[in-house]
């Protein structure tokens, strides 16, 4: 029992963490949170199931196409829902524009793919049991993304440019960094990470259009608790969230587990609005 709680909890936690990282990558590039983060996860699962399960493409091809779908949605998010409203950041129009885009994609999926949850194909032809691929795939994906991002940010020029933009957009622009292209690249990267989350977690979450809002909410919890833009914080908080949710699932039953998660989330946020690991920002008059 404990084993099952831990493996399910960590696997789900990795998916939440990946969606949290998706939020963060977009946020770092634009100071904007996007409602499409969870939609990307949903899309990863649906596209994977579509390409591999329904169309019978090889796993590797299906995987790449699913990621490409995520990249596309990431870029569309930047062009349609973020760039036009960046000028007036203080009006918070991005909340509405990204929400609208997320709903458009979600509804389109519901109509074209159907409103029922469909199975996600097994990626590797190995027998079920014990520590199954449905558990280790999300963990592997999460670990890969974390290591990959660290390498990108620390050892490549473009990664440093991302960091520079995140640190101070104006200064970065003054240095001649192509801010717009970098932002677009960040959104493309975020799209790939979000789709990867849904793809790797496909077997657990199924290919279901309703996963969008669910992931949008649970994926944001690690961001809020771990501190905005803090990827390590997001991973720790995501894993804790997954474990907490599964434990509560086991102790008080499936549904009241979500109530427990929600309650804890609200209480923590009210006590520390800047997140458990974040620092308060001075306000200016």
């Amino acid at each position: 029992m404990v084993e099952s709680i831990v493996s399910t909890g960590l696997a789900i936690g990795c998916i939440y963490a990946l969606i949290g990282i998706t939020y963060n990558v977009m946020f770092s590039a634009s100071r904007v949170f996007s409602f499409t983060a969870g939609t990307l996860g949903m899309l990863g699962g649906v596209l994977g199931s579509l390409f591999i399960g329904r169309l019978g493409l090889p796993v590797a091809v299906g995987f790449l196409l699913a990621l490409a779908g995520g990249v596309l949605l990431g870029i569309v998010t930047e062009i349609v829902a973020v760039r036009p409203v960046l000028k007036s950041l203080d009006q918070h129009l991005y909340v509405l524009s990204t929400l609208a885009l997320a709903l458009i994609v979600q509804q389109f999926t519901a109509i074209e793919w159907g409103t029922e949850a469909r199975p996600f194909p097994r990626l590797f032809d190995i027998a079920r049991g014990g520590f199954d691929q449905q558990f280790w795939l999300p963990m592997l994906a999460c670990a890969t993304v974390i290591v990959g991002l660290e390498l990108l940010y620390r050892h490549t020029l473009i990664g440093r440019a991302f960091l520079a933009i995140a640190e101070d957009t104006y200064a970065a622009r003054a240095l001649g960094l192509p801010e717009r292209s970098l932002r677009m690249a960040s959104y493309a990267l975020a799209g790939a990470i979000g789709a990867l989350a849904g793809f790797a977690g496909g077997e657990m979450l199924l290919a279901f259009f309703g996963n969008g809002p669910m992931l949008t909410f649970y994926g944001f919890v690690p961001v809020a608790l771990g501190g905005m833009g803090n990827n390590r914080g997001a991973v720790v908080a995501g894993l804790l969230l997954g474990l907490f949710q599964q434990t509560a699932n086991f102790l008080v039953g499936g549904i009241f587990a979500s109530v427990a998660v929600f309650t804890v989330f609200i209480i923590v946020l009210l006590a520390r609005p800047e997140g458990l690991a974040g620092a308060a920002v001075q306000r200016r008059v």
Partner: protein
Amino acid sequence: MDMPMAQVRPGRADTLGATSALGVALPFLVLLAIGVTFPLFGGGYWGVIATRACVYWVLVSGLNLVVGFAGQIAIGWVALLTLGAYTTSVLAAGNVMPALPPYLALAIAAVVGAIFGLIVGLPALRLRTFYFAITTLGFATIVTQVALAWQSVTGGGVGVAGPIFPKPFDSQWGFYYFCFGLAAICTWMTANIAASRFGRALTAIRDAEVAAEACGIAKPQLLALVFLFSGAVAAVAGGLFASLQSYITPDAFTLDLSVLFFIAILIGGRSSILGPLLGTILLTVLPEFAAPLVAWSTFLYAVLLLVIVLAMPGGIAELLDFKNRRPLESGRAIVPRPELLDRLLAAPAGAGAGALTLEQVALAFGGVHAIDGLDLEIRSGQIHGLIGPNGSGKTTTLNVISGYYAQQSGAVRLNGAALPVLERHRRAHMRIARTFQTPRIVGSASVLQNVMIGGTIDGECTFVESLLSLPRHRRDEVLLRDTAMLALAAVGLERLAPVRADRLQHSELRFTEIARALMLRPAFLLLDEPAAGLSAEEIGRLGALVVAIARAGTGVLLVEHHADLIFDICHHVTVLNLGKNLAAGTPAEIRSHREVVNAYLGG
């Protein structure tokens, strides 16, 4: 004083208000007439649609105060509809306890809804926009899950029968009139709030939160009231919805509904009642005209939302706002009438020989000493000038006095008593008013409404009295309107009273802010660079106005870069440099102070 007083008598404002009041009420009366006579032309199915529109509007009217007025992005309000629907149905069906009469069940649902409205809304007091949106979304997800899982009470996926209201509301048209009546009452109540100091305060919280605080508006209390109200009507809508559906399952309460409510408000436009009402009717009816589109309706709503946000953030309300399309006359001058100040400021609270003093106040941001051991005394009836180069700590000083920053040492005292640190909205109650370097104005409200915001704390009626438009509410409104007209006349802007504030010129906004500050009958008035961006002529008039304000007994702190203005009108001048007093004294002393001349004035 040969100025004819009749010109500034409230009579003028009243005629203005009266003509527009009829214009405002007319569309509602038309809708009322259509609603009452609807059964005469509508057949069976259209009756259901019309009833549904009424039910939705009951919810949207309350949500409108949260979203359209207070600007809180609550996207998961369907949760409260769900809650109300289940509470009413379960209590009326007697699943868990003996069955209650439907009306009682509905009333209990309203109470439950109010409580949960408050719980869902609470995070808005502390969290940023996106966080709040997400928490309401999370709440919506969870309520549906609970409805699905709590089988013993809610019937789980199988559902539960909705309540049936007894005669005469059991027939189709009877129930329609029941819902229509509630919708009409909700329209009336929210319109009352919109036209009250509470409604104006909500828009101030939305568009100019800093100014709202400076006017003494306590955001937590006000938002809590709005969430209670909005939750209650949403739950009532839920009970009606359950009855209309006759049978409810968790599937009936998808996020799509939330989106519909939300978009109805955005299409309708912010700070409007009519706009969202038309939006709700439009969105309820639209899918019925195009049956093949029903499956795509939420998709289309989402597209609509995107288009509205990107193309016309003002919504229907802005399209319908004909009177603000007329061009304003150009070359208009601001001609203050300082002689009116005596009437306006008559016996400011706490008048007399008071003083606002700073003793050895220090505040550092990291390693930067913004102000470092500052002494200052502002006396009633005098103008105290505060000058110094950029970055010398002038605005920081002002922000410490008005509670935006907490000083790290030293004290700020009002008549000897230390001011509470950081409690911004209490400054207004102590009659300390201020203006801002960049005017903080509610752009979509009229100039008059903006000025009335300044008098929010002087209203006496409660939220409920305003909701029901009881006598005290009307008395407050008349008083606030008259005072605001007087304040506008005093600063020379009464002709612009009905104009949308975002159409004003920069200099006019500065004088609007002064009028708003005067609404407090301030014992002390803090002006943050009021002359910035004004023409030489306007600066002269501003100077005369400030002198008159001080003569009426108010102590003025004037932060300025225009040395001429400072030396012309101030009784005392303090010069700051690097957060410290460089010099203090009368204008004549300062003008000849060698260090000041070297460091700042030049020459």
